[in-house]
């Protein structure tokens, strides 16, 4: 199981041929209190970089992009009633959606945990 990150602060935790997508702890902290999450329909096909979800804080709406290409096979419906779960546990219970990867080699272009932590340090 490996986790990869984008420069837009999404993560994808790869398990076999699929991956769980969410936003990093840094991102949830920067957004502040999450009050609404709009999730895609199960079955939707997303290209790498396409808008996968929308996360709204008290102040503003932000897009969540697909870190890699894939088909949405599951969404975290817990977030519909309890969007604050993203703040409580962004890396765990606050996941957004599960993608079946269509091009796993795209993962190579993403940051490792260590690279991402360096990246966060460089921008904060």
């Amino acid at each position, binding site marked *: 199981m490996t986790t990869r990150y984008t420069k837009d602060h999404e993560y994808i935790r790869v398990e076999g041929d699929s991956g769980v997508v969410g936003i990093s702890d840094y991102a949830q902290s920067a957004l*502040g*209190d999450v*009050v*609404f999450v709009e999730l895609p329909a199960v079955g939707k096909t997303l290209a790498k970089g396409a808008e996968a979800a929308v996360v*709204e804080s008290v*102040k503003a709406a932000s897009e969540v992009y697909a870190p890699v290409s894939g088909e949405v096979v599951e969404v975290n419906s817990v977030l519909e009633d309890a969007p604050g779960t993203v703040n409580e546990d962004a890396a765990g219970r606050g996941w957004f959606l599960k993608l079946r990867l269509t091009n796993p080699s795209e993962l190579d272009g993403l940051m490792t945990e260590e690279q991402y932590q360096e990246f966060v340090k460089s921008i904060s």
Partner: protein
Amino acid sequence: MAEQAHSDEPLLVTPLHAEHVSLGARMVPFAGYDMPVQYPTGIMTEHNWTREHAGLFDVSHMGQALLVGPDHETTAKALEALVPADIVNLKPGQQRYSQLLSDDGGILDDLMVTRSADPADDGKLILVVNASMKEADYAHMQARLPANVKLVRADDRALLAIQGPKAAEVVARLAPDTADMAFMAVKATKVAGLDVHLSRSGYTGEDGYEISVKDKDAVALWRALLADPEVKAIGLGARDSLRLEAGLCLYGHDIDTTTSPIEGGLIWSIQKRRREEGGFPGAARIQREIKEGASRVRVGLKPEGRAPAREGTVITTPDGREVGIVTSGGFGPTVNGPVAMGYVSKDVSAVGTDLHLVVRGKPIPAKVAAMPFAPHRYKR
């Protein structure tokens, strides 16, 4: 309050800037100032704290100025030529909300006008205008005031707001003579031994005060208020969600040069004498709108579900006819759901009317709602 586009100008700071930084605030550019949008606990906690206890806000970026003339009548009449409120009959020790109007009745800015309680201040009016508009407002007024009424900037003063159900008792602990002030009353007194001018008013819908103090005393006042366990520092983020739930307009968003006070639902701020006599910019349009109704009006909107409808969201009827636009919208922590306000055509403005808000291309059902969304709790 109003936002301003980011520019390369160096940001201004208030006398409390270092206090915000030391509290761990997230600082953002706002109206040319480097201001705290939130402190570490976040907007939701700050919002709820203000509704339940007392929130302390630095609003020193706002413009404070005096109009100085030979006597109250002269100064008040000079201002009445620019605003639609009755200033002549404003009693000593009272504050009033009004708008600077353009010749076509649009709103150049909204402002607070105060008449000091001190007879020695006869002929002086204290103004508080929006940070982003203050230079334009001052130029506008200076160009139109008669020779015997001068605009004097009070750039050496800070402004703090303390808001919430515990605000009055907190301030009374530091200044016992403030407790019996009513909403929109003003007083010059000492708080924690510091000379201040305070008004029982605010921008949250809660009871509380806005406290004007010399820059040099601002930190001491801030710390004295914050030392009370009922008080926490609150940033501009929660200030916005609080005022939205209170149904209060944000200049540059809910009102601007394209909206009249009548369209904006601000007729309550135009007293009877002025409605009848006119004599302010745009009076012909405003008097006509009072008589016939405006073709569009500002209304509250309560979306179904949890998705916030932000500023700029198109409003339609359920059958898709475009009837307006959202001017402020977001999540209301006290309401525990999305709330918005915007302008709609008069024929769909009645409370309870079913409308749609088009969020990311999808129509979300919403109802026209009475404002405020969270009840005002002013001290009457």
